[in-house]
């Protein structure tokens, strides 16, 4: 692959210094020798902020990939800043530290951060709820955010299945995550095994959020359906923000989406 995706936003005025005044909950320098400690610290903060177990793991992986990128392909060191807001956890990984002590050549090199598929950002895009990279002369700042669930107790995970017009509708309620994705995978597996040529509608209207395990379970379900050439699956009523996540993760093309279960049923039962 010769095509390099290079991301730089020069002179945007949104460098490391220009952040919304709030002091970070965590501000920690790192280099190649301290990534283990960085991961442990980020896990503790993510968990304390209210992220689920699966989402905390995702946060740790995302931050690690960005920090490792700064160590391996940037200045060799950097800083992590972490904020917790009521609705999200946000992290910035600043390549080279971007402080007044090392404004020299290192920071200038870091301003051009080549983002290649092998360099971790691709994975970060798939797991974080938001990801961005900005460069200006003071350094490169990569930011990720992870959404926190509603403070109210979320709806417990539930699967309901019903048959309609020769199709099976599987309604997913609650969080599709590390804790529930096994049950979801098993249910889809049973449906596939029971009916060759399965026509499956996943009704996602009551899905609250997912983590990387939930997203992986959806991908796996689609792959298993695709193995049976006569089987089909449509993901219906996916809440807008999650549909957006799917597009940003570059995964939307792997699925067939529909706005309603009725539309999904029509698509599955119409000839051709």
């Amino acid at each position, binding site marked *: 692959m010769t095509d390099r995706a290079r991301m730089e936003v020069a002179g945007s005025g949104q460098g490391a210094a220009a952040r919304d005044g709030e002091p970070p909950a965590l501000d920690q320098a790192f280099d190649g020798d301290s990534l283990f400690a960085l991961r442990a610290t980020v896990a503790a903060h993510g968990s304390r902020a209210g992220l689920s177990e699966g989402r905390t793991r995702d946060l740790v992986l995302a931050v690690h990939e960005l920090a490792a990128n700064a160590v391996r392909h940037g200045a060799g060191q950097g800083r992590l800043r972490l904020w917790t807001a009521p609705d999200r956890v946000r992290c910035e990984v600043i390549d080279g530290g971007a402080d007044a002590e090392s404004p020299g050549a290192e920071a200038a090199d870091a301003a051009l951060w080549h983002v290649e598929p092998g360099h971790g950002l691709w994975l970060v895009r798939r797991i974080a709820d938001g990801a961005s990279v900005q460069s200006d002369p003071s350094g490169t700042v990569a930011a990720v955010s992870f959404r926190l669930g509603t403070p109210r107790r979320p709806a417990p995970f539930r699967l309901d299945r019903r048959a309609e017009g020769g199709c099976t509708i599987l309604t997913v309620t609650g969080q599709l995550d*590390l804790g529930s994705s*096994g049950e979801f995978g098993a249910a889809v597996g049973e449906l596939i095994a029971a009916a060759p040529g399965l026509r499956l509608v996943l009704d996602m209207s009551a899905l609250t959020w997912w983590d990387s395990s939930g997203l*992986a379970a959806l991908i796996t379900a689609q*792959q298993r359906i695709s193995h049976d050439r006569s089987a089909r699956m449509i993901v219906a009523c996916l809440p807008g923000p999650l549909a957006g996540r799917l597009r940003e993760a570059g995964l939307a093309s792997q699925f067939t989406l529909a706005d309603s279960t009725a539309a999904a049923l029509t698509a599955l039962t119409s000839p051709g």
Partner: protein
Amino acid sequence: MIGVRQVPGPRYGLDRSADHGRAMGWLTAQMAACRQEGFPGLRVAVDMSWALRPVTGVEQLPEFEEGVAAALAGSTVSVLCQYDRERFDPVTLATVSAFHTRSVAAATYHADATLRICRQYAPPGIRLAGEIDYQHAEPLALALTEAIRFDGDITVNMTALAFIDGSCARMIVDAARGLAEGRTVVLHCNPGIKATFVLLGAGDMAGVKLVSEHDR
């Protein structure tokens, strides 16, 4: 002169009391055969997993080991007893280690407080435990290279791996992809790291089998 031959070992079956005696009889016969053919010595490797089978049982182990130690005394025969560290408990291993003149750990590619990479005998492959990132790519690459030299399917046991970063996950997937057609790499994950492999596309890759405790 060195001769290598694969001899079917004694079968451990239903008759508990006979097992230990039969194994010793087999070993003595092999020793005699080698002497007769003029070989100066004999080396035997034994996979000790048989002792985990319900009908034979770990309780026979000390007796077996004691018998072997007695038979070997003063001879030029050496027996290598292979114990799988994941399947035998530490107490049993400590008990039987007394009968051995020497003990060797399984091929270990890396071992420190945060990460252990070692060979796994059954099923054949490698085992990773702890946390791994790009800084340990070198021992991982060596372990994978050696595992690939085994025949047949290989397993990368990651059930005790708490963290794996994108670059190591990719290295494992690439190694699996490079394997000859007809061979399979089983990626045995815990649920927490399985998603990373799915997101890297390993779920739909020829020659790669992704399993975790979730799966039935």
